[in-house]
C-alpha cells in the first residue's frame, strides 16, 4: 500500500484528483511520485508535497492535515482510500465504488454526485455533503456517507438515492430539493430541513424545527426502518426502531413544491 505523508500545508489549495486507488493501483512508487497535481494552475508532482513510501497496491493511505487538498478520490470505482488526518473539498466526488475512510474532518462537497461506494468520516464535514453541483439536476445517486461529527449547509441537496447519516448536528437546508434517498440526523438540524423536498426520507432522532409547509401525518414505527437499522448497525451507526422505546412522527411535504417527501422525528416514550 503506498503511503503519502503531507510534507507541509500548501499555500493555496492543491488539486489532487490523481490521488485515487484507481490511478495508483497499477503504478510503481516512482510513478506515484511523478503523478500530476495542480497548485493553482501550475502542474506539479505528488512528491513535491508528499513523502511517498510503502509498496504498490490496491489501497492508498494519505497522512497529514490535508484540508487544502481537493478532489482526492474523485470518481474512484474500487479499492480503499484511508486518510489519517483531514481532507479538503470534493473528497470522493463522483465516486462510483470502493471505500474512503477519514479519521479527521473534511471540507465541503464530500461525496458530491457520487453514485456508489461508501465514505466514513470520523470528524466533521463541511456543507453540500452528497449534493448536486450547481446546475445539476441530481446529487448523490447511491452509496453511503457516514459522518460521526457535524455537517454544514445543504446536506444531501438534490440527492436521488443512497444514505447520508450524520452523528452531530447539521446546519440549514438539510435535504434541500431532495428527490429520493435517506438522510439520518442523530443530533438534529438547524433551520429549513427538507425545503422543496419532492421525495425521499429525512429521519431525525431529536426534535427539529419544521417548515410550515410540512404537515403531520401519523405516528408509527415504519417497517423499513428495522431493515435500515440493522444495516446501519453493521456500520456502527445505531438508530432506535423498537415499539417499546418509542415511535416516529411522520410529517409530509414540502407542500410548497408540492412534494411527497417525509420527515420522521423520533419520539421516545415518556419514561
Amino acid at each position, binding site marked *: 500500500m503506498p503511503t503519502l505523508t503531507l510534507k507541509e500545508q500548501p499555500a493555496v489549495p492543491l488539486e489532487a484528483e490523481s490521488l485515487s486507488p484507481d490511478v495508483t493501483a497499477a503504478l510503481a512508487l516512482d510513478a506515484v511520485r511523478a503523478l500530476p497535481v495542480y497548485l493553482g494552475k501550475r502542474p506539479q508532482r505528488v512528491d513535491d508535497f508528499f513523502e511517498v513510501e510503502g509498496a504498490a497496491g490496491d489501497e492508498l493511505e494519505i497522512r497529514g492535515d490535508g484540508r487544502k487538498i481537493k478532489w482526492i478520490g474523485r470518481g474512484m470505482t474500487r479499492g480503499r482510500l484511508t486518510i489519517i488526518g483531514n481532507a479538503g473539498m470534493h473528497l470522493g466526488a463522483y465516486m462510483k465504488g470502493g471505500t474512503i475512510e477519514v479519521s479527521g474532518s473534511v471540507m465541503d462537497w464530500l461525496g458530491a454526485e457520487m453514485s456508489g461506494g461508501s465514505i466514513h468520516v470520523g470528524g466533521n464535514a463541511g456543507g453540500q455533503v452528497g449534493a448536486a453541483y450547481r446546475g*445539476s439536476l441530481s446529487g448523490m445517486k447511491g452509496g453511503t456517507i457516514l459522518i460521526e461529527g457535524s455537517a454544514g449547509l445543504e446536506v444531501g441537496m438534490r440527492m436521488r438515492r443512497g444514505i447520508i447519516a450524520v452523528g452531530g448536528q447539521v446546519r440549514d437546508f438539510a435535504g434541500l430539493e431532495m428527490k429520493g434517498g435517506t438522510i439520518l440526523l442523530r443530533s438534529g438540524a438547524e433551520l429549513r430541513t427538507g425545503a422543496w423536498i419532492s421525495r425521499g426520507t429525512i429521519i431525525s432522532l431529536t426534535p427539529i424545527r419544521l417548515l410550515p409547509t410540512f404537515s403531520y401525518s401519523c405516528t408509527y414505527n415504519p417497517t423499513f426502518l428495522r431493515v435500515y437499522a440493522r444495516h446501519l448497525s453493521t456500520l456502527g451507526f445505531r438508530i432506535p426502531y423498537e415499539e417499546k422505546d418509542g415511535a416516529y412522527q411522520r410529517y409530509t411535504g414540502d407542500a410548497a413544491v408540492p412534494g411527497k417527501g417525509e420527515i420522521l422525528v423520533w419520539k421516545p416514550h415518556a419514561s
Partner: protein
Amino acid sequence: MLRITGGKVHDPANGVLGVVQDICIADGRIVPQVEGGRSIDASGMVVFPGGVDVHTHVAGAAMNFARGITPENYRKASPFIHTPELRAGLGGITPTTFATGYLYAGMGWTTVNEAAVPILSARHTHEELHDIPILDKSSLVLMANNEIVLDLLEAGEVERAKHVVAWLIWAAKAYGVKAVNPGGIVAWKFGKNASKLSEPVDGYRRVTPAQIISSLAGIIDDLRLPHPLHLHCNNLGIPGNVSTTLETMKVLEGRRAHMAHLQFHAYGGNGWGTLRSEAATIAEYFNAHTNLTADAGAILFGDAMTVTADGPWEHVLHELTGHKWSNVDVENETGCGIVSYTYKERSLVNAVQWAVGLELLLLINDPWRIFLTTDHPNGGCFWRYPELIRLLRDADYRRECLKRLPPKAQKRIVLADLDRQYTVSEIAIITSAGPARALGLSQKGHLGVGADADIAIYDENPASGLMFEHPRYVIKGGVIVVEEGQIRAVTQGREFIVHPSFDEQIEAYLRPLFEKVYTISFDNYPVAIERLAQPDIRACRP
C-alpha cells in the same frame, strides 16, 4: 496564393458536380489562375464550398442566459485549452463564443446567420459575434411582436411601418428580419398566446397574426432586402400545428419567405398521445410553392437547449418537462424563454420529431429550398450536423436507427418508406449553396471565379458514415484555418448588414414614443457602425 489540385469539386451553384478540377485562390477570392504559392494535393478528396448555416443561435443575451443557467453542461463539455493561437473556451451544448468559431470552422462551416436578435440586445449580440472567430456572420432582428410596429399596423399605417422597420434594421445593424410567433409574444405579456391566425392579437382590436405576417413579408419585399422574411410560425411544437403552418404558407402566397425550423411545425394529432408526422402534407404544399425556402430544424437524440423568443411555448415545455426554465421580457419588442431539454429515443413524441425532420429533408424535392439545420441549440448542437448528413445519405443506416424507436412511433411516421439518399452534391446544396442563395450572399456557397475563398476539403471515403466530421482542410477567405484536424490560423470574419433606405423624418416620429415607453434613451438605442469589427454593408436587391 493557393492552388487546390486533384480534388473532386462539388460546386452545384455552377453546375460542377464532382468533377476533378483545380481551384485557384488569390487575395481571399477564387481566381482563374495563379502563379506560384502553395499547392494542396486534394487527390482522393472532395472540395466543397464552405458551409453556410442559415439558422442558428450563437450569440446574444438569450444565449448568454442559456449558458448561465446550465453550468452542469460545461462540466461535461470538451474544453479548448488556451494556446498562443487559440483562446480558451468550452464546447458542449451552448459553446462559448470563441469555441463556437473553432467548432464551426473545424467542421467546414464558414458563414453563420444568428437568427434572433432583439434590437435592445443587438449591441451585446454584435460584441459576441465579434468574439466568434474565423466565421463570417449575419444576424436577423426580431420584429413580429414589436409594439411600435404593431400599433402602426393597427392604425393601418403600413407605409410608415415600412420606414420604422427599415430604421430598426439599421439601428440593430441587422441583415434581415425574423418573425417569431407573430402576435403570440405580445399576447404572452397578458399570459396568453396567439394560436389562431385570423383572430386579433390580445391587446389589439384589429391586428391578427396573419396580418402581421403578410405586412412584414410585404414590407421586406418592398425594402428589397437580400433575405426574405424569416418566419417562425405560430403554434411551434404543438400537436396538430400543421393546419397553422399551411394557413401561414397560404397567407404568404405571392411573397417570398423563409420558413424556419419547419420540423417543429409539421405535426398532426390533437394531443401528445396522438402526435404524428404531417411532413408529407407540408412537403406536398411546399414542393408546389416556389416562393418559399425552409430549413429543417431537425432534432437529434440527446441533450439540447431550447432558446427562443417564443416565450409562451417555452412555458408549455417547462410545464411538460419540469426542467429549468427562464423567461425574459424584452420591453416593447419581444420576449424570450429558455428550457434545457433532452430528446429521448424511447419517447414517442421525440421519436416522431426525429422522423419529421428527416422526412421533410427527404420529401421536399428541391434541395435548393430546404437547408440543413438543427435550429442549434434547440434540436441539437450544430457540431452534430455530420450525424444528420449520415442519416440523409444512408437509407440502410436510417432504417437501423428507426428500429430503436418505440413501435407506436413507427405507425405515426413515414420515414421507413423513404428510400431517397442524398448525393454528395446535394449535401453541398443543403449545407452551403442553397442557404447562401437564400440569404442573398452572392459570393458565398460556390467556387466560381470571384467567390470568397471559403472551402472545405473532406476525405472521400464512402465507407465512413461520418466523412463530413473532420475536414482535411478548411480555407476561409483564402487562409488555411484548419489542417490535419488542427486550427492553424484564426482570422476575424466579417459581419454582413444591410442599410435599407428610410425617410430620415421617421426619427421625429419615433423619438417621443421612445421617451414614453422605453427604459433607455432614443440616442442610446441604435448600434453605432463603429461597434462592428468588420461590417460589410450588402446592397439591397435591385
